[in-house]
């Protein structure tokens, strides 16, 4: 066992952690599909899926089996390369973002100095999944969905970055671990309340969750950009949406709610509890809000959220300079 040096052991543990986090993110995304349907049922006073297994717990298995055995059909009028590439981008860019999220003091994939920027970069790449998916389908509904999605995502990404800059200014770092450590005393949601609000809105919009699911509006676009997708390619878009939900929840917890910090319970439990809370919030929003009109979504982003984040950033900068002038 001469090759089993401490370096090898550290590398092995790091790889194992990365694998566990990857699988955990995907599994949590998959489980959320069923949890969401049950919760929607609960909040809307109906049952939801409760037939497969005890309390419908095996519904996930049934759904997976069904989606794996569907015919994987590529329309003859589609642009094959981009059609196949789009779901891969959708899934991969979101999963890669989990690299920068520190789960507990000992758990996390990479400790990048540019942590937050890495997430913003991946969110920027994620737009192409929808764009290419919609365009390569060769379908007008899909194209309109992709147009809406890209316009919406671009608009909301602008102030998503700006909303986070207040946190960056307060922590003095892009590094997620340092941001979490800077929240030891009090969570950033208190001084950065408007930053939190705008980031939550932008996060919902960027993952195309209800009420910002214009791109896939069932009633008018018949599912938008993934209308031509079937089987596991559709599955990747579908699970990707839930993985995005998990990602945004984890990011909100990390950036505004102190990450793993909390009394009594171990760090991993605190992180899981907080993330779970925001996942529930996502579902509750879907259960309770109607979908606004598209132009209102756009003007809300540019006319309300963008000025709000700018003012928030200005005030944050001024207060930081007042409290600790250098």
């Amino acid at each position: 066992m001469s090759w089993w040096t401490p370096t090898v052991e550290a590398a092995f543990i790091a790889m194992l952690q990365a694998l566990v986090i990857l699988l955990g993110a995907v599994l949590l995304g998959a489980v959320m599909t069923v949890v969401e349907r049950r919760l929607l049922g609960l909040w809307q006073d109906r049952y939801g899926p409760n037939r497969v297994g005890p309390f419908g717990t095996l519904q996930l298995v049934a759904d997976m089996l069904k989606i794996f055995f569907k015919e994987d059909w590529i329309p003859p009028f589609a642009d094959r390369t981009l059609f196949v590439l789009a779901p891969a981008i959708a899934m991969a860019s979101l999963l890669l973002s989990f690299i920068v999220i520190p789960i507990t003091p000992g758990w996390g994939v990479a400790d990048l100095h540019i942590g937050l920027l890495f997430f913003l970069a991946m969110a920027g790449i994620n737009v192409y999944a929808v764009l290419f998916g919609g365009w390569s389908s060769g379908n007008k509904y899909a194209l309109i969905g992709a147009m809406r999605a890209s316009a919406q995502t671009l608009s909301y990404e602008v102030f998503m970055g700006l909303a986070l800059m207040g946190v960056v200014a307060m922590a003095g770092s892009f590094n997620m671990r340092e941001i979490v450590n800077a929240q030891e005393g009090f969570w950033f949601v208190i001084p950065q309340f408007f930053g939190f609000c705008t980031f939550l809105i932008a996060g919902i919009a960027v993952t195309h969750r209800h009420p910002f699911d214009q791109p896939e509006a069932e009633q008018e676009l018949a599912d938008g950009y993934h209308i031509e997708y079937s089987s596991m390619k559709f599955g990747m878009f579908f699970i990707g949406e839930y993985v995005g939900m998990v990602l945004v929840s984890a990011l909100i917890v990390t950036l505004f709610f102190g990450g793993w910090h909390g009394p009594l319970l171990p760090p991993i439990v605190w992180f899981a509890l907080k993330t779970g809370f925001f996942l529930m919030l996502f579902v509750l929003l879907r259960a309770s809000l109607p979908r606004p009109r598209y132009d209102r979504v756009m003007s809300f982003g540019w006319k309300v959220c963008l000025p709000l984040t700018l003012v928030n950033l200005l005030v944050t900068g001024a207060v930081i300079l007042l409290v600790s002038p250098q």
Partner: protein
Amino acid sequence: MEVAFYLSGLVAVLATLGVVVSVNPVHALLYLIVSLIGVAMVFFALGAPFAGALEIIVYAGAIMVLFVFVVMMLNLGEAVVDQERAWLKPGIWRGPAVLAALLLVILAVTLWRGDIGMVIAGETLTAKAVGMTLFGPWLLVVELGAMLLLAALVTASHVGRLSTPRQTPGRDASTKEGA
């Protein structure tokens, strides 16, 4: 890290070549995005992760999205692919290829002789020096330029807006201009 540097550099060069030779505009844009990501990886390998991240956020994440957006809106079909194919005839390559080869020779010779710092006269200008000059003695000009750009932006938004809708008795006539 050297392997990563050379590999991503190679990817960037090949992808850029792909941009030039692809006949489908959307595929060309995809190559351009790959090329930008390759350049960002080069920055990462060189130990400038900040520049790499900004490269992806600004170029791949924002500017290229607008390019793709516009190309999709134009709804280019087979006609454009044929036109591109016609443009890519070997005869048309000749002139630019000779000129580009000349530049390549100059680059190779300069690198070979190892006197990158040598210029005809004066010192090599760094980005810092440019910034100091721009925001020092020339601050007024920079600000005036910024105002000019702002004016252009306002004008573009004025020209490009929808004409005022006729006053219809509909319930939300007042929100039309927000589109």
